[in-house]
């Protein structure tokens, strides 16, 4: 006998209780603290800050703990929090030229002023599981060197001096804000870069990878990749001059891409640009490749119909919070729609079978 589906509310409460218990896991194992996550899961924290569009390592660590390590869920928590924050003002553009670099490499020159600095990278580690990490040991200490005091010059500027790379026009126009205005296409480069920097790492990586495999190839070289701290300055009206209000760690990638030139312009290198919160170089490099692919029109290249060249396709599908929400909403009840389809299919089948019988009888 049919029993009315009551009790949704009790079921939800019970599910939340169970979730909280599962989140804690075996109570005999010590609980993770937020500072532990912030310090020891720093790259997860960085990803949550980048795609959550909120630079706050403590909140990101808390979100990771609350989300049981599901980073997209953690990003969602941060986004939902961020959207409630008041906007007190705007910072001045950060000067990545003045970055205190922890890592800075160029793939286009053997050596460059400012030097090649590997920094804390996985790059040349052998991916062998380190079973020593299963045991608690002393905190490892790295050797130290004198930090560089002066600003590190940009590799692309060396090329620019000779006119070998296309110049980026400077503008003081206020960029549009994708979190405050509905997206309209064509979006233009500032909006594209905003969407890419908060876009899903996996999606942006996949798009970038597709360009490397020939779907909108643009021959990228990593002109420069730098990771480090920059100061955030803000103009305070009462003071009349910018004051430093804090620091961010950023990853910046500038790619140097080949460009054949045209009848009007001699051959020149072009650029792709990636800038992401935290140490997030896979994302920053991917972003630069996708940015470059999306610039086909402005650079007079052919659109070969590659997905990474399609601004609307890339931007409309790069956000993992939108994507995961819509994907997972199909878990919600749809039985009214399904019933409607059921009736239609039954009716169409009945009519088709009726016609077949009629034909048989006539033959």
């Amino acid at each position, binding site marked *: 006998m049919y029993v009315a*589906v009551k009790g949704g509310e009790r079921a939800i409460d019970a599910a939340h209780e169970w979730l909280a218990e599962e989140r804690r896991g075996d109570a005999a194992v010590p609980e993770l603290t937020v500072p532990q996550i912030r310090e020891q899961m720093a790259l997860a924290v960085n990803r949550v800050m980048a795609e959550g569009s909120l630079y706050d390592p403590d909140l990101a660590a808390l979100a990771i703990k609350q989300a049981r390590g599901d980073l997209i869920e953690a990003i969602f928590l941060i986004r939902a929090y961020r959207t409630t924050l008041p906007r007190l003002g705007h910072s001045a553009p950060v000067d990545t030229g003045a970055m205190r670099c922890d890592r800075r490499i160029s793939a286009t020159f053997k050596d460059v002023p400012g030097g090649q600095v590997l920094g804390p990278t996985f790059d040349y580690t052998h991916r062998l599981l380190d079973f020593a990490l299963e045991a608690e040991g002393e905190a490892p200490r790295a050797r130290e060197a004198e930090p560089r005091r002066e600003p590190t010059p940009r590799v692309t500027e060396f090329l620019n001096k000779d006119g070998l790379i296309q110049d980026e026009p400077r503008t003081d126009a206020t960029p549009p804000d994708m979190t405050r205005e509905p997206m309209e296409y064509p979006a233009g480069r500032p909006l594209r870069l905003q969407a890419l920097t908060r876009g899903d790492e996996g999606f942006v990586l996949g798009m970038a990878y597709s360009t490397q495999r020939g779907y909108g190839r643009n021959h990228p070289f990593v002109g420069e990749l730098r990771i480090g701290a920059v100061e955030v300055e803000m103009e305070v009206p009462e003071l009349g001059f910018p004051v430093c209000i804090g620091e961010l760690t950023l990853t910046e990638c500038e790619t140097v891409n080949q460009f054949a030139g045209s009848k009007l312009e001699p051959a020149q290198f072009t650029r792709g640009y990636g800038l992401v919160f935290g140490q997030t170089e896979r994302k920053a490099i991917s972003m630069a490749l996708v940015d470059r692919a999306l610039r086909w029109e402005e650079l007079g290249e052919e659109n070969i119909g590659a997905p990474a060249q399609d601004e609307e396709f890339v931007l*409309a599908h790069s956000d993992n919070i939108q994507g995961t929400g*819509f994907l997972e*909403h199909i878990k919600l009840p749809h039985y009214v*729609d399904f019933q409607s389809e059921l*009736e239609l299919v039954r009716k169409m089948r009945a009519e088709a079978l009726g016609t077949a019988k009629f034909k048989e009888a006539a033959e």
Partner: protein
Amino acid sequence: MTDQAYNFAYLDEQTKRMIRRALLKALAVPGYQVPFASREMPMPYGWGTGGVQVTAACLTPEDRLKVIDQGADDTTNAVSIRKFFERTAEVETTEHTAEATVIQTRHRIPEQPLEEGQILVYQVPIPEPLRFLEPRETETRKMHALEEYGLMHVKLYEDIAHNGAISTAYAYPVKVEGRYVMDPSPIPKFDNPKLESAAIQLFGAGREQRIYALPPHTKVVSLDFEDHPFEASKADHDCDLCGCGSSYLDEVITDDAGGRMFVCSDTDFCATRQAEGHRGALSPQEEYA
């Protein structure tokens, strides 16, 4: 999280003002999709964020809110959204259609005709009726601007050519006041005639950043052909609990031997009828005593 940390109905007043402007524009141009700067909400995209934002922008402390999903007040997501507004707006809630001033819905229009002064808010997944014919927003906006709906008619025609019938059972496209083709959200086509209503109908698509609306008594025509007229179909049964022969029915599988029953999808409508003494074929016998 302290609830006091948030504004009435969660959204800040600036955001509500932005949404209300979009709503007014939508009401002024019925069926036209107005872009709005949808905010990230504390529930996932695709779970009613557009409807929730529209409801939040409409609610006043005196309102009485009803939330339904699939026609039912007690489906989990309806419960969750109702709780959200109980918590952030502290408005009264109700399950009775007639008592509600604002009704947020997903996939259904209540059976009881709505009246002037009521607002029906729809949750919309894909606001663009032309989306599955043309995936590009840049193109579909142009098609609406030029009133270029040939593609839609070709699609409906091809349905008939292939299947003998228009094979759209829900989210059945309509033309509003002879101008815009509109997606009525995934309501079953049975509900389409109810789109001509005395109530204000507002449609919110959060992820897609669009709002559209039907002012009271707007002309809404389901697309069809003279020789294949639109038909608001439903299961050919009466409700097994209240005996109603004209309401939209859910088919409920009752055992693993093909047993099934049909019940009103609108739970308030069905419960009200049962309270009035109406009985269906499978109503519990003891209630007659």
